[in-house]
């Protein structure tokens, strides 16, 4: 009697397991909805209050790609291995820039090593961490690219068209 129950349980559970595996594969390789914490990317993202339910949601694409200048990327934080951070790519391997902190406090231009990028926050008024603090970021720390702002609906937009804020605080030397 219990044998048929066990068989039927296994028959049903294979759908759950299959669905779970497919969801995880999608999450790992296609993308998912990611919550924006903090105001480091304001006013593009989270220009308003950032308490729990008010945070904006974006689509994080995990399709394979190469970082380009202007992309908003999510990456593993070099300061806390397990946490994720979201900033904008300001320079890619081979380029030379004079980063923001140098403009403020001296130092020289920085040339990106191949396979490394420089990330900066959009919102100069925040105390956020970016490459000005932890230096060049290894490309493989990037886990995905932010493509669309999904929530709130009133602000839906294609974020791939947004760019580095025009600023007097960083110069690209080519």
């Amino acid at each position: 009697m219990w044998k048929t129950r066990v068989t039927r349980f296994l028959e049903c559970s294979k759908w759950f397991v299959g669905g779970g595996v497919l969801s995880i594969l999608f999450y790992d390789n296609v993308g998912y909805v990611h919550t924006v914490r903090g105001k480091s990317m304001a006013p593009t993202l989270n220009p308003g209050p950032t308490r729990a339910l008010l945070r904006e949601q974006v689509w994080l694409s995990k399709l394979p790609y190469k970082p380009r200048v202007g992309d908003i990327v999510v990456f593993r934080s070099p300061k806390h291995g397990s946490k994720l951070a979201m900033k904008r790519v300001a320079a890619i391997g081979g380029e030379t820039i004079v980063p923001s902190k140098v403009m403020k406090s001296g130092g020289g231009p920085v040339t990106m090593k191949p396979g490394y990028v420089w990330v900066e926050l959009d919102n100069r008024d925040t105390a956020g961490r970016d490459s000005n603090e932890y230096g060049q970021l290894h490309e493989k720390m990037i886990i995905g690219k932010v493509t669309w702002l999904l929530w709130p609906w009133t602000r839906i937009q294609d974020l791939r068209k947004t760019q580095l804020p025009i600023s007097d605080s960083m110069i690209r030397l080519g």
Partner: protein
Amino acid sequence: MQSAALAHGKKVVQYLNQKKREITYTVIGTSLATFFITSRIATTAVVTGQSMTPTFNKNSSKSRVLIELMTPVTKVKPNDIVLAHDPEETDAYIVKRVTALAGQFVDVDENCPGTYVRKYAYEGKLSVPSGYCWVEGDNKTNSQDSREFGPIPLGLIKGRVLYTLWS
């Protein structure tokens, strides 16, 4: 008599089609399951080079090892052997042993200090910054590791190497 043969023939075709479907589903299902397992749970890799002798490649030029991908990077401990992205070459990987974690100190190896060690060591020691770890090959005389390129961020670690399958 002819229609009986025809009916039988149709049944055979139906049966074969069903088997074809079953085989296709099995192939797709197995491929997805394999992809899932090798990207999230465990996978194998070939270790080449002599930087980890005698632990790996003592008597060979390459060995296949088993790697587990499930440990979160915060649980990596000293003496774990890890597979990580190569800090010097984007698409390459390195297999090294973790010798120090963030907040710990590394003693300078008098015999083979590397570029990074020579530049940043102070009074014979180096500290590992938060979010990073220090990795070294077991073969100290023939290994490009943290002594050369400095500590690596934990985020570059993909998994821990468990043991050699064959060499």
